[in-house]
Every structure is written in structure tokens, then in C-alpha cells.
């Protein structure tokens, strides 16, 4: 089976162009047996991107995708504070372009009503919605969402397919927050490879709701794959987490776009 990685970036990777950075990432991915990468956001990030910056970052992802259409998928980066610009980007990159998902980061708390039209449109397009979350005892960024806020969003949008980025960082709390919402899946990526994380995710959410992601280039493939290979889980769970769950989530939009694997 193939390993699919739901959480990759073009930052923290050497390379002057988006495509050279993706090429570098894919060399490491090859070493680790990772077949497909979902990438989002550009070479230099913005917490609260203007419409122009949003478009620029998405253009960089599109540019990288053109060189590796069989190895990477793109998620469009949106800022809910710019509603119409975000809807336009969603249409440009997903409806009319090759992207298959939405990335929401830290511009706005995800329980705010500004997200509703974006989720509605993304759901119409069958796009997977990836929302960054974290619970920091050191204090969250001003617009940084928690899994508890994501749960509120999920309750309003039961038809949306939502991924809880980082499982909230503090996964022992984050996994509990999203547990009741069957349309919320969890991303293992981006935190330390702390033992017990994956076991709790499988125990509390079920193996069908857990997805491998790395958060490269800031993180390594190694530390994040170790969360799956090192976990005391069944081989069936391992297969689902490493690829089959993400394939299942993306199947509607891939079918809609006529993309055959």
C-alpha cells in the first residue's frame, strides 16, 4: 500500500522555487516510502494574509503541483476575514483548478460565523477542510483555534469533511473535544512523537478517523511516521491511518474531478 501524507508545506525546505522545494520534499518522501503529499500554503507564510498574499501563496502551490501532478495534491489557503476573496480563491483553485481541499490556519477562530460560507461552498465542491488547531498552555496566537472551537464549527456543518490539524497539539484534550463529531477526522502531524498519542486517537475516535500527516518541512517524516509505526495498534489500523482513510476522504472530489489513482 501507499503512504499518503495529509500535511505538508513548502516552507522549511531548501529550494528557490516552489517546484524545486517540492522536488526536495519528494526525494525525502521517496526515502521514507511516502507516495503522495498534500501541500498547502506558500514559501513564506502569513498569519493573516491579504487577498493578494493568499492568491500568491496558492499560486506557488499550483506552480509546484504542475510539475508533480501524480505525487502531490493541493489544498487552497483561505482567510475567513476576506469572505469574497476566499470564495473566489476556492472557486479558482478547487472548482476550476486541481486542488482538492481547503486549509484554514490562524487568521480567525474557526467557530466564528465568517467560516460558514466557506465551509458551505467547500462542501458543495466535495473539498476536504483542514483546520489548524492547538491548545497551548503558553498561550495561543490571537486567531488560533482550539479543537473545542472546531467542534462548534463541526456541529454547524455535519455534512462537511473536516480534519482537526495537529489533533489540537495537546492531544489528550483535543481528541476528546472532537470525539462526538463523526465528520471530524484527526491529523497526527506536527507535534513531538510522544508515545500513546496514536493509541489514544484510535481508541477514542476509531481507526477510521485517524490520518497520518507530517507537517514537513518544519517537522520530519521520521518523527511523524514513528507515531504510526511505533504505536501499539493493529496492522489494519496502521494501513487505514497511513493512507486508506485519506484516500476515502478524497475519493468524492477525486471522482468528481475525474482523477483516477
Amino acid at each position, binding site marked *: 500500500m501507499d503512504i499518503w501524507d495529509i500535511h505538508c508545506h513548502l516552507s522549511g525546505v531548501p529550494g528557490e522555487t516552489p517546484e524545486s522545494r517540492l522536488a526536495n520534499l519528494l526525494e525525502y518522501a521517496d526515502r521514507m516510502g511516502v507516495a503522495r503529499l498534500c501541500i498547502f500554503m506558500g514559501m513564506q507564510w502569513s498569519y493573516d494574509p491579504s487577498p493578494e498574499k493568499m492568491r500568491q501563496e496558492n499560486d506557488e502551490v499550483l506552480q509546484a503541483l504542475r510539475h508533480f501532478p501524480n505525487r502531490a495534491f493541493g489544498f487552497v489557503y483561505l482567510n475567513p476575514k476576506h469572505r469574497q476573496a476566499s470564495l473566489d480563491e476556492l472557486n479558482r483553485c478547487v472548482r476550476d483548478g486541481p486542488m482538492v481541499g481547503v486549509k484554514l490556519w490562524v487568521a480567525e477562530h474557526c467557530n466564528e460565523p465568517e467560516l460558514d460560507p466557506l465551509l458551505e461552498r467547500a462542501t458543495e465542491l466535495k473539498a476536504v477542510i483542514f483546520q489548524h488547531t492547538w491548545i497551548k498552555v503558553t498561550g495561543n496566537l490571537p486567531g488560533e483555534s482550539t479543537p473545542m472551537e472546531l467542534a462548534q464549527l463541526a456541529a454547524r456543518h455535519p455534512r462537511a469533511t473536516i480534519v482537526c490539524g495537529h489533533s489540537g497539539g495537546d492531544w489528550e484534550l483535543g481528541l476528546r473535544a472532537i470525539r462526538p463529531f463523526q465528520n471530524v477526522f484527526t491529523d497526527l502531524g506536527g507535534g513531538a512523537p510522544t*508515545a500513546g498519542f496514536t493509541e489514544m486517537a484510535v481508541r477514542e475516535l476509531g481507526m477510521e478517523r485517524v490520518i497520518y500527516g507530517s507537517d514537513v518541512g518544519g517537522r520530519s517524516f521520521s518523527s511523524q511516521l514513528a507515531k504510526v509505526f511505533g504505536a501499539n495498534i493493529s496492522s489494519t489500523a496502521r494501513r487505514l491511518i497511513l493512507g486508506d482513510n485519506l484516500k476515502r476522504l478524497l475519493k468524492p472530489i477525486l471522482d468528481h474531478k475525474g482523477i483516477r489513482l
Partner: protein
Amino acid sequence: MKNLPNPNWSLSRRRFLLSACIGGTLAKFTAKAASQTRMPPPPKIIDVNVNLSRWPLRRIRYDDTAALAGMLNQKGVTQAWASTFDALLHKDLGSVNARLADECRRYGRRILLPFGSINPKSPDWEEELRRCSEEYQMIGIRLYPNYHGYKLDDPEFLKLLRLATDRHLIVQVALLMEDERMMHPLLRVQQVDATPLSGVVKEVPGARVVLLNATGKLSGSSLRDLTNAGQVFVEIAMLEGVGGISNLLKQVPAHRILFGSHAPLFYFDSALLKLKESPLDSNPLQQICRDNAERLTKKPS
């Protein structure tokens, strides 16, 4: 599951070493091609960052000494430098160190080497140091400055480093145990500031210092300055970023890098897979996995 990077040495050592040893050539291979290539046997690993007993905030797999030793043995580790989570919060370090030595002797499969802990802010800590050296015949000690409440410019730390060096003990300094962002609100500690260490090490000729969990935040010139100041080593448990070891080698020479897993708090496979992710020649691979640690354990003649 074909084409997966199985981190179990005993099952996939050839596939693993393919990536670890061939360097840049391998990056051009697909994973499928990689899995079909034959490789020499892997080096045995010395893991310099292992912990016994129970993490204060969670039960974790392998928080039983015999089970931990069994797992390490199965992963190809032939020696592991072990401290104990008890040393973080227990005040009676005499008891902690005695128990650590006993656990390693009884259940350690001759893999676990105890590294006792000393709190230089605790009364009569010199006696604990003597016991570690003389009674338990330890080869090193592990310090937790942030849990024990001192900084590395504290005169007591300098004194401890001197006395430990006089006894030919390796001194490990744990800069961090877990991500500061997710600490329990009642158990928050800041990462140890390693900046003063450069100066302190220069005052103690012959000191051998191993920084644990340092490569997550230390990098660039600050890391380079530290490893240039004396016999200061780092390990890879908290090393992050794609191609982490390759990046680290641009900052620190291979002879100053050790294999460390931070198991069982971290999944052991994290450190193991890092050896695969970076294209390493066999020489630095051997140095990191074993040779550097082995050389450290030899007392100067």
C-alpha cells in the same frame, strides 16, 4: 505492507541500511527500488537517551524496565544510557539512584547502563555523586537543571562538573523533557538556557558533556559555539525538520552527534527512522549510531 519503512531492525535491516548508508544515490531511487536492494548488516546502536520508571503525567508503553530493555534489544540497541523519570520530582535522589542501579542490573539485559541524577542545589549532593561513581560504578550522571531549579551559570553546577570530571563521569544535561506548549499547567518548566555552558566547559578541562533534547531549539551559531567550546555532544531525539541529520551535520561535526531516542516517552522509531531519512555515508552513520558513544565511555588513560 510493501514499500513501507518498517522501523524494526530485525525484520528490515537491509532495507533500512539501504537508505542509511548509500547517501545521495538513494535519493534518486523510488521506495520500491530501494526495497529491492541488498545491503550490509546494520551497526549496533548505543542509545544515550533512555528513561526508566513512570512519566509523572501519563502511563506509557515500556514504562516497565524489563519491557523497555526487551524492546531496545529487539530494535538493535546493544547499550542504552538510562536515567529515571523519578529524578525529575523526587527529592530523595539517593533512593532514586539506588533503585535505578538495581533496575538496570536486574532487568536491563546488560543493555541498560544507569546514569544517576544529582541535584547540586540539594544538601550534601556530593555524597550522591560519590555513590554513583563508587558504589554503583556508573559511567555518567544526568542533570535536570530546569526541574531542580538552577541555571548553568550557577557556581554549584560548575563545582559539580569539576567533581564529576575528576571522577571521569560523563555529564548529561537534559535541556527539556517535553514540548513547553503542552506541559501540564501545574508542571511548567522552561527549557534550560545552554548559553553559559560554553564558558563553564572551558573552565573544566576534560569535561565530557552530552546535551539531551537540545537539537529541537538549539541550532546555528549557538549550537556550533557550544560544540566547539569543549567535548560537548548532542543527540537526535528532538531533532526536527525534513532531512534533520543532514542539516545537523552542516552545523555540528559527525563526531559530536550521538543516537538518542528519549524512549519510552517518545516512540523509539522516531530516532531510528531519522537515520533513514537523511542520506548518510556509512562513516557518519557508524559514528552517530555507536562509535562516538563508545569512545565517550572509555576512561582516559
